[in-house]
């Protein structure tokens, strides 16, 4: 899938003002330092997957695995998307 599009969707969903897709590395951790994301951002990523790709993650634990980096998200989307 188009990782730049995914990064753009993340930036919009999480209101990451002043950040561009080029600022987010494909394999860098999304959480922890860096983008300064928190638990509400993680919940908003569940909504992004559902809304854009028709993927309903079951629980927070699953989210932790999927949302490790843009790479892991893209891989999961490719394997599970329904739209």
């Amino acid at each position, binding site marked *: 899938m188009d990782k730049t599009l995914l990064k753009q969707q993340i930036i919009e969903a*999480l*209101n*990451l*003002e*002043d950040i561009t897709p080029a600022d987010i590395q494909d394999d860098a951790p999304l959480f922890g330092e860096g983008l*300064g994301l*928190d*638990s*509400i*951002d993680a*919940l*908003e990523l*569940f*909504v992004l997957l*559902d*809304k854009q790709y028709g993927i309903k993650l079951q*629980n*927070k634990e699953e989210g932790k695995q999927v949302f490790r980096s843009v790479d892991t998200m893209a891989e999961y989307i490719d394997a599970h998307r329904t739209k």
Partner: protein
Amino acid sequence: MTAIIADHIISPLGHGTAANMAAVQEGHSALRMYHDAPLEPYCASLLPEMPIMDGLTRFETLCVEAIRKASEHYAQLPADRQTVIILSTTKGNVEHLATGDDPLLTTSAQKIADRCGNRNTPIVVSNACISGVCALITAMRLLEAGMYKHAVVVGCDVLSPFIISGFQSFKALSDEPCRPFDKNRTGLNLGEAAACMLLTADEQLAMNAYGTIVSGAIHNDANHISGPSRTGEGSLRCLSDVLGEKDKLAFVNVHGTATAYNDEMESIALNRAGLEEVPVNGLKGFFGHTLGAAGLLETILSLHALEKGLILPTRGYSEQGTSYSVNISSAMRHTDKREFIKVLSGFGGCNAAIRVRLGVPTEVMPQQEEVTVKPMAEVRLTPKGIWLNGQQLPTTETGEALLTELYRTYIKDYPKYFKMDTLSRLGFVAAEILLQSIGEERFAAREDRAIVLGNRSASLKNDTDYQATILPDNYYPSPSLFVYTLPNIVTGEIAIRNKYYGESSFYVLEHEADLLPLAQLAMQQRNTRSVLAGWVECSTKDNWEAHLVLLTK
């Protein structure tokens, strides 16, 4: 110290305090599964269909009914000219957003006051899940200050797709009856209820009291707008403030929502406060989390249990599931002690506790010292510009762009600003410019500054935005919008930025002038030396105004 002379509970377990107490003693719960698409299936405690009073909504009917029944033996009290009506709720008639009817809390509060024949302006406390205890604290302050003689405090929330979808977007709900403090707890259940307490400062009436609110405290975690402090900062400070003599405590009735983080946080706060051996119980396994009613309902039942010499059980608990050990009462226990603490925590990082004693007030309250309050600085912010102590500051933008211009000029390096709703941006930017102007040291943790804000429309603008994410044909409930559907989040944003561990309160009022007395009462609290107070009104993206002052003694 304030006398409790009457109460009433309406819940799915019964109509009346006695019926509810009997149901709890028998171990009943009304928690059950509901299937109501597009909501995911959920487990909740919902009130059955009931007749609605003419001209009122279901929410308002419940409030009026609870007040009428509570005042059965004091029929003149609600309409007394020295009585204030205080409404505790998180969302009131928010379901009206879906139908285009008036959802405002001030409208509901006025209708409730009118129905009770009360002519004083009602006060709405909307401080997330701690509202009920905050409303009792506000009542106690008003009575102790002699501003009113009696208070009718009523707490209620009704559940609608708006609230349920929001908690689901937070993945906070359990799909089985909740298990507070248990190893296998999987989240909270929501519940509907209305609960009312009558309080008085009248010496004659106080002779009839069966309970006394001895002290109360409110503190912010200064940590996160939805996650509780990992070290229980605010809850610890509340417990410590109201503690009194530990040996006199029968139990602590905790918030106990059965989410992983809340119960863990409370176990830490209880231990840090030295309360690890005092019996602890939680009632959400019977009623679910009844939001604006919780503080009242749980206080009322705790008090009546103590009258019977009982510590109520924690339904759903079987095995310790917090990393710090606490003395959970899983089964009914007996006690001959006469005091308990009720503690709550909520979104916006807020925490509140009261200590309640069985029987009539025993000590005469010392006359409070008259505190002279002076404003140190003042800021006014509208879509057209900003005025600091009457002087307009140079800006070029208008409307929402003005808020972001001010952020870029005066703050610059706080990207969470862009995640905030308009109400929080407004209060946050106005507070920042006010605090920068007085030249004090910033960002050192402090306990002595309270934040007391209020407005007329609560979180209406953001409620409307959240409602747009739960349309039946476009249903993607947004957690980052839902969290801001609590107006007190703006106080949390300011507390987090500034590391303020003092009081944080939010009131919904018809007029700005009604807020100042409440801010002055916050100032009279022992540990408070200054109050960041003001009006932050925001009804649409273009219709907002902030007027903040920093008050000092």
